[in-house]
């Protein structure tokens, strides 16, 4: 931290001194909770952004100007996200913001970014059903995570699905999409159970015993988990305690990554699954370099990397390329330049930004190993573009998003030929 402050200070000195003719430093906003309930996930993203900015500055910055991080702490308080977003854009004059984790925090800052016409990079997998001109979604949409995950289960002969989720917008929307998709794939309605639990649910005895009964009819069953955050640890602990192994009833999770597993003894969980677009165990030179840099930066060999970190890596590099291409940090020019930009991801491919402000990514299914890492057991043949409006929900099936001129619309209805959603 101290080192960082020093480098920022040095950057400022350079900016006003030797590099003054090159212009002021470009300010980059980082809007992640450093305290409160979401600090557990978001602090790491702040760190990875600081690392990326430091690396970029070591390579000479962007447009010959150094980057200057501006870190704020919205403290897991959703209205605070909007206030601080406003402060970052109009008060601090940042050119771009990397931030948010929960969907509700993103929804809270959307009007601010629209009003002040700035750019937000959002790095977390989310429920889709949204496309906004000022936002670039580098996390997975449901078709880049949930749908391939149940495809994998169906391919492996699973016939019964227990959809367990935390009671808020992401699991509800995802499960709505999944249920429609499973029914379309010929799964009988009585073979699908949807169950919601409150945030931070810690007593899983009843639900796990229900899952056990659900899975012991002699027909293969699986749990599709959109259980969020801290509730996962007691859930997996209870699974292990009641002796449910992945060979009997595998659990495939969309919110459990390397970081979440760090707090659990993974030996009893070996074989449970997760669907992501990146795993720390992926063996590519880019990933190895990234992990080494991360360990060196954070000063610990035991810290893990995860999917949202990769999303920020991709998003940051895309922004850098777009700014270099546009030759300016002006929001409108960069927004236009971002569409079509392609940068290497950490899994050995080239991710590109689509006209709908979502990116292309590979989909990987991994099994939990005893060392807390994931072993990739399946992956899509190529990269998949995020689909903002789900094709499996009747109201949104005819909608498309294309932010390029002349359409320039986030919810174009192909049925009615108008921009403005399904109304």
């Amino acid at each position, binding site marked *: 931290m101290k080192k960082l402050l020093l480098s920022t200070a040095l950057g400022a000195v350079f900016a006003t001194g030797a590099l003054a003719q090159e212009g002021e430093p470009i300010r980059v906003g980082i809007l992640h909770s450093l*305290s409160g*309930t979401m*600090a*557990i996930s978001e*602090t*790491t993203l702040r760190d990875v952004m600081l690392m990326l900015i430091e690396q970029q500055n070591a390579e000479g910055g962007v447009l010959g100007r150094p980057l200057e991080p501006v870190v704020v702490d919205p403290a897991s308080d959703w209205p605070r996200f909007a206030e601080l977003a406003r402060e970052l854009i109009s008060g601090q004059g940042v050119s771009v913001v990397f931030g948010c984790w929960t969907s509700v925090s993103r929804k809270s800052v959307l009007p601010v970014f629209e009003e002040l016409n700035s750019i937000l990079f959002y790095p977390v997998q989310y429920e889709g059903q949204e496309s906004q001109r000022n936002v670039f979604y580098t996390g997975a949409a449901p078709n880049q995570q949930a749908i391939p995950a149940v495809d994998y*289960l169906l391919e*492996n*002969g*699973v016939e019964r699905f227990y959809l367990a989720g935390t*009671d808020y917008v992401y699991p509800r929307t995802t499960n709505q999409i999944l249920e429609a998709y499973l029914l379309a794939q010929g799964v009988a309605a009585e073979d699908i159970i949807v*169950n*919601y*639990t*409150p945030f*931070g649910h*810690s*007593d899983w*005895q*009843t*639900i796990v*015993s*229900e899952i*056990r*009964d659900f899975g*012991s*009819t*002699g*027909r*293969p*069953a*699986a749990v599709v988990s959109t259980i969020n955050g*801290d509730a*996962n*640890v*007691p859930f997996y*602990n*209870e699974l292990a*305690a*009641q*002796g449910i192994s*992945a*060979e*009997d*009833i*595998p659990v495939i999770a969309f919110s459990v990554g390397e*970081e*979440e597993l*760090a*707090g*659990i*003894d993974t030996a009893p969980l*070996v*074989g449970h699954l997760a669907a992501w677009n990146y795993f720390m165990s992926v063996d590519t030179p880019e990933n190895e370099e990234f992990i080494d840099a991360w360990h060196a930066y954070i000063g610990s060999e035991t810290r893990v990397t995860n999917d949202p970190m990769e999303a920020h890596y991709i998003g940051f590099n895309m922004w850098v390329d777009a700014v270099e291409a546009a030759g300016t940090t002006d929001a409108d020019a960069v927004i236009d330049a971002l569409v079509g930009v392609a940068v290497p991801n950490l899994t050995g491919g080239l991710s590109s930004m689509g006209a709908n402000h979502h990116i292309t990514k590979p989909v990987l299914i991994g*099994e939990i*190993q*005893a*060392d807390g890492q994931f*072993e990739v*057991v399946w992956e899509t043949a190529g990269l998949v573009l995020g689909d903002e409006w789900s094709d499996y929900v009747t109201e949104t099936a005819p909608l498309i998003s294309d932010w390029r001129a002349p359409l320039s619309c986030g919810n174009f209805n192909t049925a009615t030929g108008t921009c403005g959603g399904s109304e």
Partner: protein
Amino acid sequence: MPFRPLTLIAALCLAVVLPFLASAQTLDALIARLPDGNFNDRAAIVAQIAETGDPRAAQVLDALLEGELEQRTADGRFVRVTGSRNNQTAVDVLTGEDLGPVARRSTEAVRVNNALRRSIRTALGVLTLMDPDPARRLAAAEAALRSPSADQVDALAEAMAAETNANIRTAQTRAHAAAVLASDLPVEQKLDAVAVIGAANAQIVQQTLNAYRNAAEPELAAAVGEALAAAEARQRLWSQAQNLWFGLSLGSVLLLAAIGLAITFGVMGVINLAHGELVMLGAYTTYTVQQIIRTNAPEYFGYSLAIAIPLAFLLVGAVGVLIERGIVRHLYGRPLETLLGTWGVSLILQQAVRSIYGPTNREVGTPDWMSGAWQIGEMTLTGPRIAIVIFSLVVFFGLLLLMKYSAFGLQMRAVTQNRPMAANLGIRTGYVDALTFGLGAGIAGLAGVALSQIDNVSPNLGQGYIIDSFLVVVFGGVGNLWGTFAAALSLGVANKFLEPWAGAVLGKIVILVFIILFIQKRPRGLFPQRGRAAEG
């Protein structure tokens, strides 16, 4: 059991295609091919390894199943690597030669996945049915029950005849029955098999018999239908007992979390919003103790909780005394300021822990003696839950004895009931206040040790329990320990009986609405405090 059909088909194909290939290959040649190819290729090699009849096959497969089979990069030898991350030792799987310690990156693990693990277990089951180790024989019988195959009828019958251990024999009998059902033996034998399976617990009955519900022979289908119906009825009956147990175990968690608050809030009247964070400190104490033991004396890991219990009590109790002396004592009689002050303390403690330990979850292990599960009828009791129920009762009755029969308990009650009179009688009221608050905090620390076994140890741990704790204390009647006890257990049980039909979210709302109505009717809770102190 997902994926089984695929595995079976794969195994069948292999059985048809590969015998002439397999017979030509030795174990050494087969194992060398393991690291190449995908998981399906590996499953094929596993089946061939089982068929070699080589006496070393079982130990190779066992190492593979445990994920301990690795290849040395230097010379390509296959070794079984065991031990902790920084202290690994290797044994050659084929020769049994001890190769001593190995460096961390000098070996490459042979990866396994779910489907492969299932194939290994099935293959291993065939090899270890008659193993001298009873645990392995049991595992083999269970594997055979999970994936019954007609080929195993004779082998299982042979194993049954030789078996002396009653438990393993039961497992083998069931596996044999399942194999008979899968075979084309006469229907009379299959009816006997249905009877054998029908006597097992409901899960096994459903898992094994559901497939024969529509069997071609009408008498078999009828018998299967009857057995399934009987199992379902049994399960329904037992589910009431299961709910009661779940309720008691949730209730004991609530009791543990609330009992410290029953002292600070119930007895002293301090609205202590930092109570949850004191619980969290207890959990982090457990983590720190385990961390020290892990690095210095891993052999004593089984005692880690026994060491953490007194330490958490003293440490968190001391923090409690500090909070009382530093903040709370200046705010007696000003509930609103106390509320704000202790809320501030809770934020400070949370952020302090976040800065010291980091924001991510910490892993607290369960000692071996506490893990495990027991089957009683159709219900499962798990180790940590049993331990927590017992622990909460011990803490509760210990506290009750302390309050009733010790000099300190007497002084505590005297001070809270009539402060000036107690002071006149020579009791140092300030001193008693500090110790009482410390006692409540210390008990919160004990709760933290217990909760670290079932919940995640993160800076947010306390937030999940603070509301529930207040709920329990208010519902039970402020100032009454027995009220807290009754409230915790009844809320736990009510919650668990509501959950199966109302769902977790609605169940919680129903309970909250009930409590609001109850408090309207009886503002002093289940067991109101009587007498002058209560009116003051």
